[in-house]
């Protein structure tokens, strides 16, 4: 990783900068240490509370129905349960989402796709596993095509049991996630 990844400078200058030193250390190292330090300060200080307030009140979810829970997710976003009240709206592209709702069975064929989608989401991001299938494989636990241990692949913050859970439980899960973000106990909030 060079400085050109962080600030837009031509690659030639980047290579030149790699040779520079400051306090006997490469410039790049000092640069990154400082940003890390800034992150640490933010992590410790009260400004993180403001960040977290913003983050917890604006979790956009990826519209990605997978199984029975996908239907309930659809209803959860629509008028009867209205997730928009909590500032939680569906987006179609992973680039603009904050939370991935794992709404069903993950198969061998879908896991690579799913992992790709997860990687495309910008940090900080969270994952909610909804339904038995997403948590442990559910009724399909002994299928040849179902992944059982989704928590090994994704840092899941909230598990919502049910087959499928009611939309009210979706809201409950969302509020749990918001509480976790607020208390800094979420798995991916360090960014």
């Amino acid at each position, binding site marked *: 990783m060079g400085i050109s990844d962080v600030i*837009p400078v031509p690659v030639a200058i980047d290579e030149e900068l790699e040779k520079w030193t400051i306090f006997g250390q490469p410039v790049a190292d000092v640069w990154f240490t400082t940003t890390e330090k800034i992150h640490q300060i933010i992590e410790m200080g009260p400004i993180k509370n*403001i*960040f977290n*307030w*913003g*983050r*917890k*009140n*604006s979790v956009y979810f990826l519209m990605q129905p997978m199984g029975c829970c996908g239907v309930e997710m659809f209803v959860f976003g*629509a*008028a*009867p349960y*209205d997730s*928009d*009240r*909590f*500032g939680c709206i569906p*987006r*179609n*592209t992973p*680039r*603009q989402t*904050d939370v991935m709702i794992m709404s069903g069975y993950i198969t061998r064929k879908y896991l690579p796709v799913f992992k790709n989608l997860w990687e495309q989401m*910008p*940090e*900080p991001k969270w994952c909610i596993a909804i339904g038995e299938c997403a948590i442990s494989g559910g009724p399909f636990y002994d299928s040849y095509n179902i992944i059982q241990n989704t928590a090994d692949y994704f840092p899941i913050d909230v598990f919502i049991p049910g087959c499928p859970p009611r939309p009210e439980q979706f809201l409950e899960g969302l509020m749990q996630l918001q509480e976790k973000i607020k208390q800094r106990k979420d798995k991916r909030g360090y*960014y």
Partner: protein
Amino acid sequence: MDGIIESITQFANQEPAIFALIIGIIGAAIIAGVVNVGAMLLIWGERKVLGDFAARFGPNRVGGRWGILQLGADAIKLFTKEDIIPAEADKGVYVWAPIVASMATMLVAAAIPFGALHINGQDYPLVVANMDISAFYVEAALSIMSIAVFMAGYSSNNKYSMLGAFRGMARMIAYEVPMGVCVISVAIMAHSLNLVEIAQNQTLWYAFAQPLGFVIFVIALITDLGRIPFDQSEGEEEIISGYNTEYSGIRWGLLYFQEYNNALLGSILLTLLFLGGWQGPIIPIPLLDIISPLIWMLMKMIIVLWFFIWVRSSLVRLRIDQVTDLGWKWMLPLSIVNLGWAVLVGSYFA
């Protein structure tokens, strides 16, 4: 007080160039603030009104029961998001697209009158740069957004974005012409290309004087703003999110925000050109009479914006070929018919 004004006048006389610069900077700061706050309120308002149309509440958890701080939360989140630039994107263009979009709206905001103050029986328009040809200038600057859309779509190296960019360009070309012709029609009737004069000269609203032109202008404006039923460049369900598919975090926030900025400015333009601008009866209450033109302006704008949202919640999206068909085969000839009408009527009244 008098002393301060006197010294300012003195300074203005001594250093006219520097004075103009300072006034420009202050004005720019004010309009940037006004427009951006207005756009934030518009996004919030759209979410609430859309919710109302769909028999739900919209945001109501952040900042009291009206959810007024929802946009603040969204902004904080977007600002602190990871900044992703796709590996194969055209980095320079990708980074500049949201900035160009912001610049476009600021260029419009510089020349558009936001209203007027009514002091001692006279209207003083609130405008930073009072140009002779501001109607044309604003209409042209509004379409710079299309270039930003094209930049964003082209640079993302994404098939959906690419398609969205092409659609946006095709749509812009098809509708910019009838829109321009409508502006000319209005200018002919008003005998001026200055938005301030156009607004002040409207004894009869041009929406009534040239109803055909009004309808065409509204349709062309909705198209220019990229709102349903003409949001093919975003086309959420077909091409994911259109030109901004690859944008995330604050860059996407900027692009998204500029759409609403544009909608706000578009509503102002529509009000000025066709709905009599800030004209309306003066409220005979001290202090309120000063800002009563502003109140009228705001009310008309809100009605226009509410109309946009109403359209969004009740119409189906058109296909891109139908949009361009409509533009070239109907809007353009009809706008020319309207131009003829404006020439006839305008010369008769003159």
